[in-house]
């Protein structure tokens, strides 16, 4: 079985479950080689949109695991920054939770608008993730980030693939260990901030699992992530593979350039922008 898994737990600020439904609709529309799309959520979040979930997901897994308090800053372009809780601790449990032999995990704010990720199915790699990213607005110059200037390269846990295997099992066990001891590993790897980040945990685990030597896990079929950071906005959604974005200028982030993206997977980090367009996205995506 091949499945796509999305994690979504509402936090009273962002309706992650609704966004996940839109993202699932895009995945179903643009990919064809998978068997199921699965939502991992908690009981309270599932109760908010029972009908919508049935329309977009083949399977729902309820995981009410305790989520330690994790707070992050949410931005909607350069305006209205707000802090809200951020329930991202469940992702490391995906190896145990996944009922699939091959699993593609995507963030609920990752919109699959091409068929590229169909190439992951049947891969000989046990695990694939990207280390490079591109800022669609071009504000961030480099395409590789380090966890810290003096330590390891960061990978992006926004999208990753794994197959049930010894390597993947060990990897996720290690990620869980890092999650429960992340303050120690943050100190060891000079990680900035106090927010637990899956990106950091995955990068640290991959580094450790490979003997602490220079190493990069195999990349996904396109070896970088297209990131739209939260200073950007959505101008118009044309179809399930066509969106026009407001990209914040590097020099003056209050000003934007219009950029159109077609047949390009996109990580849209401005949740408010997605929420403003989510009904259109739900309509354009494919239901069961």
């Amino acid at each position, binding site marked *: 079985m091949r499945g796509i898994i999305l994690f979504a737990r509402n936090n009273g600020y962002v309706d992650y479950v609704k966004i996940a439904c839109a993202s699932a609709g895009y995945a179903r529309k643009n990919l064809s080689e998978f068997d199921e799309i699965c939502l991992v959520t908690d009981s309270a979040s599932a109760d908010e949109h029972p009908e919508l979930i049935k329309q977009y997901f083949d399977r729902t897994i309820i995981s009410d695991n305790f989520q330690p308090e994790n707070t992050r800053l949410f931005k909607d372009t350069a305006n209205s920054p707000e802090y809200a809780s951020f329930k991202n601790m469940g992702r490391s449990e995906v190896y145990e939770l996944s009922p699939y032999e091959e699993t593609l995990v995507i963030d609920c704010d990752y919109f699959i608008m091409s068929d590229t990720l169909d190439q992951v199915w049947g891969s000989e790699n046990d695990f694939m993730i990207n280390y490079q990213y591109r800022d669609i607005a071009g504000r961030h110059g480099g395409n590789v980030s380090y966890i810290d*200037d*003096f330590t*390891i390269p960061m990978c992006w846990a926004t999208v990753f693939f794994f197959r049930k295997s010894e390597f993947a099992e060990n990897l996720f066990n290690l990620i869980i260990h890092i999650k429960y001891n992340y303050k120690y590993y943050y100190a060891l790897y000079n990680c900035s901030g106090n927010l637990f980040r899956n990106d950091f945990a995955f990068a640290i685990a991959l580094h450790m699992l490979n003997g*602490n030597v220079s190493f990069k896990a195999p990349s996904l079929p396109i070896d970088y992530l297209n990131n739209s950071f939260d200073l950007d906005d959505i101008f118009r959604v044309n179809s399930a593979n066509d969106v026009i974005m407001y990209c914040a200028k590097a020099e003056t982030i209050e000003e934007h350039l219009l950029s159109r993206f077609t047949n390009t997977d996109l990580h849209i980090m401005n949740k408010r922008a997605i929420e403003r367009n989510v009904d259109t996205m739900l309509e354009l995506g494919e239901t069961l």
Partner: protein
Amino acid sequence: MSRGYIVIAQNNNEFDYLEMTYALALSLKATQRENAICVCVDEYTKGLVQDKHRKVFDHIVDIPWNDDAGADNWKIHNKWKYIHMSPFDETIILDSDMVFTHSVDHWWDYLATKDVWCCTNVKTFRGEDVVDDFYRKKFTELELPDVYSNFSYFKKTQPAYEFFRMVELIMTHWNVYYDKFLKGIGQNWMSADMAYALAIKLLDIEEVVCDYDIKDVPTFVHMKSHVQNIERTKIDNIWTKSIPSELSDNLEVRIGNFVQNLPVHYVQKEWMTQEKIATYEKAVL
């Protein structure tokens, strides 16, 4: 065919190159099957050689034809004499401030395909290829071969003697060669790397003694601060002030959480402490 490493150890007022070479020799004994080392010393340094050094140095050779370094603190002036000092048929040149971490024995047969093989690719502590020319502006400006004299390989053949003869001419007539070929931006002092690079260029043997396509043999981790792919303003000129590092009891060298598996050129002489030397001694002797 004998194979071994050669190092010039000349102490100055500031640093104990003999002790650094001792640590290097111990690391060779700990990690390499081909671990013979020839240590070349001047009269002063020779007087500092102790029994512990003799135990791990396979050959101790006097630097011949006087000490060209004289009173200079940075003693690189004798680096044209390697071919005359080496007791081995095949030799790899090292600097004192290096340590070996894992076996590179398999490199020898590969290096032996050339008479002289100058290292042209070095790595950051993260294992990335060094691409920054911060310390090598003149190399870039004058399109000199991007060679590192340490970890150069040679065998005692006619082309190798010709190469070292050219290096000798450049080093002993530095001002002449500098004025004629090396004026411009960047350093104006003599370095072995620059002398080797100019010799290669003048002899037109870059394609013979260098191989830019092969990034992993020969190579080493070069710990000069500003080639580490870290923004200039974020790393101290002395890398040890910015990046944590350690030598573990099982002789694993870790720099910034990366276990090093290539030879490491640690550059900062104070990195090699008596404590680290004791760790090597405990493991090897």
